[in-house]
């Protein structure tokens, strides 16, 4: 029981992390872009 709880907790963290990484958009200027890339 406790094992399942922790395991699914880890799954939750993993999903949350992936979700943040891929879908959560940060509006942040990227210094590494050229100024003409239209991404500033």
């Amino acid at each position, binding site marked *: 029981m*406790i*094992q*399942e709880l*922790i*395991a699914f907790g*880890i*799954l939750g963290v*993993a*999903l949350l*992390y*992936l979700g943040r*990484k*891929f879908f959560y958009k940060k509006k*942040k200027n*990227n210094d*590494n*872009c*050229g*100024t*003409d*890339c239209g*991404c*500033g």
Partner: protein
Amino acid sequence: MSNENINVALIGNPNVGKTSVFNALTGLNQQVGNYPGITVEKKVGFCKLPNHAKANILDLPGTYSLNASSMDENVVIELLLNKNDKLFPDVAVVVTDVENLKRNLLLFTQIKDLEIPVILAINMADRMAYKGISLDISHLEEQLNTKIALISTRKKQGIEELKQLIMSYKNLSTEPCLNASSMDPDYFGGLRKTFPNELVYKLWLVITQDVNFRGIEKKEILSEHRKSDSELKRMQQKETIKRYQFINDVLKVGQTIDKESARDFGTKLDRILTHKVWGYAIFFGILFLIFQSIFSWSEVPMDLIDSAFGWMSTAVQEHMPPGVLTDLISQGIIPGIGGIVIFIPQIAFLFLFISVLEESGYMSRVVFLMDKIMKRFGLSGKSVVPLISGVACAIPAIMATRNIENWKERLITILVTPFTTCSARLPVYTIIISLVIPDERVLGFLNIRGLMLMALYAAGFLMAIFAAYIFNKILKVTSKTYFVVEMPNYKLPLLRNVGINVVEKTKAFVVGAGKIILAISIVLWFLASYGPGDDFNNADKIVTAQISKSDAAVSQQELDGHIASYKLENSYLGIAGKVIEPVIKPLGYDWKIGIAVLSSFAAREVFVGTLATIYSVGETDEQDPIREKMAAERRPDGSKLFDLPTGISLLLFYAFAMQCASTLAIVKKETNSWKWPAIQFAIMSAVAYLAALTAYQFLQ
């Protein structure tokens, strides 16, 4: 003026010998202090000129341009913009290095725009003969609208001439040498109207640099002449390009570099390393050696890592109480981390070599050598480094594109780099090649399997170049190039710099890609370990019933294997494999391969591991158990599943498909948009599908 000293400011890029000129002019008459309120060093000296005239020499901090980015550069701009400063120069001496005139002249043209008298001091004249450089001084003086002193502080030449020029500074022209405001005549015309008493270039500096300037506020100018930050940035870039174009034109006539007559060792070495034939031969020779070493040196640590993680999994399985968490750790998390750590040796070795090549100055020669060829495909000479680094891993390779100035070339490099064969593809290639390509030799010594592997590397590289060519044709991205090939002097690489570089790049991979790979392995494990419906939940009973019906004698181990495989078939992942079966059937794959291919879209290195689970490889004593199982796998009609057509189709699919979530994430980060990773994913998957389809249908 006779009893007033002439104020002279020495300005120049770092390392041009400005301090040496200062010492030559002032001797021991120096005072060192700080600028009021800040810690930037202020050096003032005193110099006797001919005819009893005297000069105060101010040595300003070294600066690359008037685009202030540091406190040092701000000091320079603030002084030059403030006529009321008591140090404001009557004349500026811009010191340059004869070997780096092109780069050094950028600052000169900017100072010239401030309409103060400027003398151009070209230092290190003693190096000219070594380097085969000759200058047409009168042409340069005319084009740059200035007076030139050709000096060598080392040989103590030209200093008197410089003093003479300083003394007669009133004869110098204060006209700019190029008209920078022509890049946007309307805007600058407007500025001129609003502030008729101010220099347009001064206003421009106030707008673009955060400098204090008495009497004019940035806000005041911008309130009447609005420009957004990105517009301003773009205009600044335009300005730089314009200046470099002008300098190029001037130097084309005013400077000749005759490499043949150069005598120094570096130039002789350059002549070989950038030679039309030898240059390429040496470069490819070095590449060959690097790859040989990477793969042979990494073998031992990789095997060690592999067995260490295998041991850890077993230990966890044995010592933790049985349960979901134990399984997750031993089958999901530990192999997940192992899948990251195993690439560290290759990546570290690769970056060790690359940073040695960069530090020694050789890489700049390669960039120079390759630039012409790469340009034809829409790439830059600097794309060579990412394309080579891609052999280890696309993630650090894509980060290595940051020094490509031209945005379009950088974008294309980012888009095509994942085609190069990264080390994650290697385990897939190795196992499939060993299944479908016979272990034979041609011509007595060439191993066919080795040739196949090489062909796959070549295919990846050629596809990258071809894709770049197409992208170059269709991408509508405007950008300008101002490629300044800097040829740094050869030097022995500093161990410290190399070490830092290797650690940083490796860390970027482990931290950047590692977390994603780990998270995905965890999710995959759950998808493979849970399923809907009775088939999944009652797998034990169903399989046991089937087996006891068939009367076959099976060991407990085999039984466990069958149950695991049945479970996987009915897990969420297995169901997904069945759903895509119609799509992948024309490529020669069944649903099991489908699962492996699907999970590989997270990270391709999970392919072999997933197949191992699917074919329920238990703990057996056989050598190479996965390979054996794969070789024994049959289609419903009894033919071998992993035959030549399916094998080649799989190899091509893995060669071209974008199966790496971490790379997509890094592309998103570097391009700051979802558009490019999406395009990349779509195009690469389409290419992979078509290639695999063609191969299978043709070979079948």
